[in-house]
């Protein structure tokens, strides 16, 4: 049994009077794709932000490959170089072109020489299909292109784990597919991914494990077949039923039909 690459232990977080996370624990293994689902406002994003300490949990600990991120002495900036994060609102740097966005951390954090950084940046943009848009500003890109550029920006740091915080929720329906495609390729290449999403089709096909988070606790977790076909908990069943009602059997992605789906 391999060691988990990411260990999340007993995370508690409250905002004011609202207790958002009540003791969430999760192990993620190398190469695993874990998709977190659940009703809005249940702390899914907060959990993700607790991993790279953008949000500091009130209680609980996080380890990345044996290094405790929540410990006092840890250099969190160094740790963040090994964790990539993709945001719902993309958060591309508006004053820089796409390639400059990807290059910034390479030159400033990894101290690469500009030529090296540019070469690497172009390679990453190539991988997400944006090589021809490298010199455009974020304002000149479509939503799907922005998100792909954001993914390239995080990937350029060669992280060991990628966190995705509702990556397609802010996109128009016809643009969701291109981003999910990039994510799927990434999964196939063996990247460890922790994804918060409503895209049930994606979850079904790509996830190794699905985690259902509600009211700050993990209600159920398991492989997609198990959760979708035979959920153990009543609440899981209810939630999935609601989603299927809303989005159809393919979750939120209305533009992609995969062969063999019912």
């Amino acid at each position, binding site marked *: 049994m391999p060691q988990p690459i990411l260990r999340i232990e007993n995370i508690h977080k409250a905002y004011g009077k609202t207790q958002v996370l009540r003791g969430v624990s999760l192990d993620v293994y190398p190469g695993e794709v874990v998709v977190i689902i659940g009703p809005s406002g249940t702390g899914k994003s907060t959990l993700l932000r607790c991993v790279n300490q953008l949000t500091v949990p009130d209680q609980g600990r996080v380890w990345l490959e044996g290094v405790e991120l929540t410990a006092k002495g840890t250099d969190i900036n160094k740790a963040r*170089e090994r*964790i990539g994060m993709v945001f719902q609102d993309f*958060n591309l*740097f*508006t*004053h820089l072109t796409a390639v400059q966005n990807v290059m*910034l*951390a390479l030159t400033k954090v990894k101290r690469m020489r500009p030529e090296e950084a540019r070469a690497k940046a172009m390679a990453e943009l190539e991988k997400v299909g944006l090589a021809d848009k490298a010199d455009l500003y974020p*304002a000149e890109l479509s939503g799907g292109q922005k998100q792909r550029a954001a993914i390239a920006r*995080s990937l350029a740091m060669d992280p060991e784990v990628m966190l995705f915080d509702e990556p397609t929720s802010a996109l128009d329906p016809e643009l969701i597919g291109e981003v999910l495609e990039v994510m799927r390729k990434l999964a196939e290449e063996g990247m460890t991914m922790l994804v918060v999403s409503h895209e049930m089709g994606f979850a079904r096909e790509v996830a190794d494990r699905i985690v259902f988070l509600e009211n700050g606790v993990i209600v159920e977790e398991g492989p997609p077949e198990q959760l979708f076909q035979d959920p153990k908990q009543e609440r899981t069943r209810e939630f999935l039923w609601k989603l299927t009602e809303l989005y159809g059997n393919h979750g939120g992605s209305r533009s992609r039909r995969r062969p063999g789906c019912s």
Partner: protein
Amino acid sequence: MAYFLRCLKFILPAAKTTLLLTVAALGIGLVAGLLLAVARIYGGKAAAGLASAYSRIVRSLPTLVVLFIFYSLSSSLLHISGVTAALLALSACTAAYQSEIFRGAIQSLGTGQMAAARSLGMTRPMAIRYVILPQALRLAIPSWSNEAAIVLKDSSLASAVGATEIFRRAQQVGAAHHDYLPAYLACGLIYFVLTFLTNRGLDLMQRKFKLKL
């Protein structure tokens, strides 16, 4: 008419002092204002509190009051000229207003930019320098242009503490010939032209550096 032109000739050389005061005060105010804004948003409780207090207090005071405070300071403690005291006073005032401008610009960026920069492993100072400020400065340009025009016009108040700038010259020539109105109209014209040119120049800058959002 001829007198009006004579006034213009007499007053015009002082435009140098006016421009010097304006540009220097804006420059000092820019650096100080940025530091104050960063302190308020990213600093610890003490730094943020001090910066906030400074901004509130100075913005509640008339420019004339600040001018006289510095003037009195200068004559009793520092022995500097009227112009220098005026410069310090104008700088202190514009720093407070500029800190508000930059604070607003930084806040309008939202928290996502900092989050993205930090998530890539950048330290806070790095993020502020390479991600936040480049964008905030561009966003601030329109408000800043407004402030620049204000400082130019406020420089006229430096005459009250003896600085020999445009308005003071107008007072002088008017008093010398006991004919005041043309003198003040002449100085008004000069200010108008200066303000106009400043606005145009900054407009061009705004167009060149505009952030595509």
